[in-house]
C-alpha cells in the first residue's frame, strides 16, 4: 500500500532582504495511510511551513513530495494555484487554530459550505453521519455565535471532513481552546484516526496533545531527526 505522504529532501527557503532563511531544511519522511503523526517544536521551528508544503498550501524550494502514490512536487518545479487547488480538493481537509465559520450561516450550512465549490460523489449522503460523529446534531440550526468555542472547532472539523478527505491537516487546532476542550478535540482526532482510518497530521506546541498521535516528530530549526523518515 502506498504511503499517504512521502517527502524526500524537502527544503523551503525564504529570501528576506539579502538574507536567505531556511524554514524547512532537507526533511524526508513517510506517513502511512491511517497513521496519526504530530509535529512538535518551538515557534519558528518550521513545523507550520512543513505542514503547509505537505498539505499543498505552499510549494517547496526543492525536494520531492508524493501523496497517495502520486508525485506532486518534483525538485523545485512549482505548481500553479489551480493545480494546487485540485490536489487539495481531492486529498486534504484542513483545520486551523481559528475556526473561520461564517457567522450568518448556521452550523449545518457552515459544515456543507465546501459543497458550494466542490463535492465528491456521494459526499452529501454522509452529511448527517459527519454531523452526528462530531456531536453536533442538536446544534445544526444554531448560528456560530450561539455555540461554544469547542463546538465551533467541531464544526470546523466537520467542514474539513465533509468531502471525505484522505488526510486531515490540523494546524494548532486547540490553540484557541481551554484545556478541557483541547482534550476533547484531541480525543476526537484520535477517534477519527482509529475508528475511521483517517490519516491525521497534527501541528501543535502542546506536548500533551502531541502525545495522542501514534508518532511524534520534533522539529528543530527546520530539521527532523533522522529516525522520522519512517
Amino acid at each position: 500500500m502506498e504511503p499517504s505522504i512521502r517527502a524526500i529532501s524537502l527544503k523551503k527557503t525564504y529570501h528576506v532582504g539579502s538574507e536567505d532563511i531556511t524554514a524547512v531544511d532537507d526533511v524526508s519522511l513517510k506517513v502511512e495511510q491511517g497513521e496519526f503523526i504530530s509535529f512538535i517544536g518551538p515557534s519558528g521551528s518550521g513545523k507550520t511551513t512543513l505542514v503547509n508544503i505537505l498539505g499543498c498550501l505552499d510549494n517547496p524550494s526543492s525536494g520531492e513530495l508524493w501523496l497517495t502514490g502520486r508525485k506532486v512536487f518534483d525538485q523545485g518545479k512549482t505548481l500553479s494555484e489551480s493545480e494546487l487547488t485540485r490536489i487539495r480538493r481531492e486529498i486534504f481537509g484542513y483545520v486551523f487554530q481559528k475556526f473561520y465559520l461564517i457567522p450568518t450561516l448556521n452550523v449545518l450550512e457552515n459544515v456543507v459550505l465546501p459543497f458550494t465549490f466542490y463535492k465528491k460523489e456521494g459526499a452529501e449522503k454522509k452529511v448527517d453521519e459527519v454531523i452526528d460523529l462530531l456531536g453536533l446534531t442538536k446544534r445544526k440550526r444554531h448560528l456560530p455565535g450561539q455555540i461554544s468555542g469547542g463546538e465551533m472547532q467541531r464544526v470546523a472539523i466537520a467542514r474539513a471532513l465533509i468531502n471525505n478527505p484522505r488526510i486531515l491537516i490540523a494546524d494548532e487546532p486547540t490553540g484557541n481552546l481551554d484545556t478541557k476542550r483541547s482534550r476533547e478535540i484531541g480525543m476526537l482526532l484520535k477517534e477519527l484516526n482509529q475508528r475511521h482510518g483517517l490519516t491525521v497530521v497534527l501541528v501543535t506546541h502542546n506536548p500533551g496533545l502531541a502525545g495522542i498521535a501514534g508518532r511524534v516528530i520534533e522539529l528543530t530549526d527546520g530539521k527532523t531527526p533522522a529516525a522520522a523518515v519512517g
Partner: protein
Amino acid sequence: MIRIYQVAYKNLLRKKTRSGLTIIGIALAAWVLVSLLGFNAGYESSLNRDIDSLGYQMLVTAKGCPYEAATLMLKGGTGLKYMKKEIADEISKEPEVDGITSMLMHAVFDPNKGESGGITAYLGVDPATFPGMKSSLEFQQGEWFTDPEAPEVVMGYEAAELEQREAGDKFIIPGQDAEFDVVGILKRTGTQDDGTIFMPLNTVQNLFGFKDELTGIGVKINKDADITQFEEKMYKLPDVQVVSLSQVKQTIMTLVSTAKVMVFSIAVIAILISIVGVINTILMSVMERMQEIGILKSMGATAWDVFKLIWFETLILCFSGGVAGTILALGTSKFAEILIRSILPYAPSGGLIKIDISLVIASIAVVTFIGLISGIFPSWKAGRVKPLEAIRSQVE
C-alpha cells in the same frame, strides 16, 4: 445544500449597516436615473399630445420673440403682440391652406382668483372655424356658441371648476360690466384648454378694444401640400412670423435641453459616486475577510469560485439598490413633476414623468450592469488571494 448566492446574501448580512448604506447610495443613483429617463419620455409624449390637440399644424403670429410665440401657441402668454385681421384673408387664399381659424387672446387680472389674485386667459375664437379644427374637444355640458357676437362663454374643465360654473350660469369678467352666459363646459383634455375661457372672436375684440386685431391664426394645411415650401411663402408676409409644429417642438426642446443636461450630469455623478461606493464596500469586505477567503480556497474553492462569490455580493447590492431606486422613483414621480414644473420655463400639460415597465426593467438592468462592472476589481482581487498568504495574515 447551500448555494453560492445564498452564501453571498448571508455574507452581506454580516455588516447590515454598511450593506444598507451602499444599497441606499445605489438606490439614489437609480432614482435619479429612472426619474430622468421617465422625464425624457414623459415630457416629449406630453408635448406631442399638446401639439396634436391643437388641431392645426401652423400658427401665424405678429412678429416678435419666437419663444413668446411658442408659449402663446401652447399656453397663452403675456406681452402679446397683435396683427391685422386682413392677414388671415391673405393666408386663406393660398392653395396649400385647407382652413384657417383666427384667434385673439386677452389676459385679465382677476383679484378674486386664488389668495392674491391671478391672470385668466380669454381666447376669442371664430365659432365658424374653431370647433371644426378642434374636433378633439368634447363637451361635458352644453355646446359651442353659434353667433360670432354672442355674449357667451365656453369654459374649459378646470376653468369651470375654478369659477364654479355650469352650463346655463351667468359669468362676469372682472372689470367689465357685461354679463355672459355660460353655454358649454368642456370635458377634461389634460391640455392648456382646460384652463381657458373661450368666447366668440368678435366679442373679445369688441370687449377689450382690439377690433380688427388678432394674436394668432391657426392654419390647417392640405395633406399633400409641401409644408416647407408653404412656410417659406409665409415668411414673406410682412410683420408676421410663422411657427410650425416642428419648430414649436424644437424651440421647447431647446429650452428644456439645458435643464436636461444639468439633471443628466447629476445622474452621471450620482452613478459614479455609487460605483465608487460599491467598489469601496466590496473591497473593504474582501480585505476584512482575507483569511476567510484563504480558508475557502483551502476547502477547494478556485479563483473563479471566489470571484463568483464576491461578484454575487455586488450583484445583490446593485440589484437591490436598482429595485429600491426604481420604487422610489415611482413613488416620488408626482413630487418630481411638481419640482420640474417649477424649474422649466414651459411644461406641457399631462404627466411629465412617464415610467413604464420597459423603463423599469432597463433601469434596473443598467444599474445592475454598472454595479457588476464595478465589482470586477474587488472580485478579481479576492480570487487571486493565495490561501497560505491569507492564513498567514491571521497570525501576523
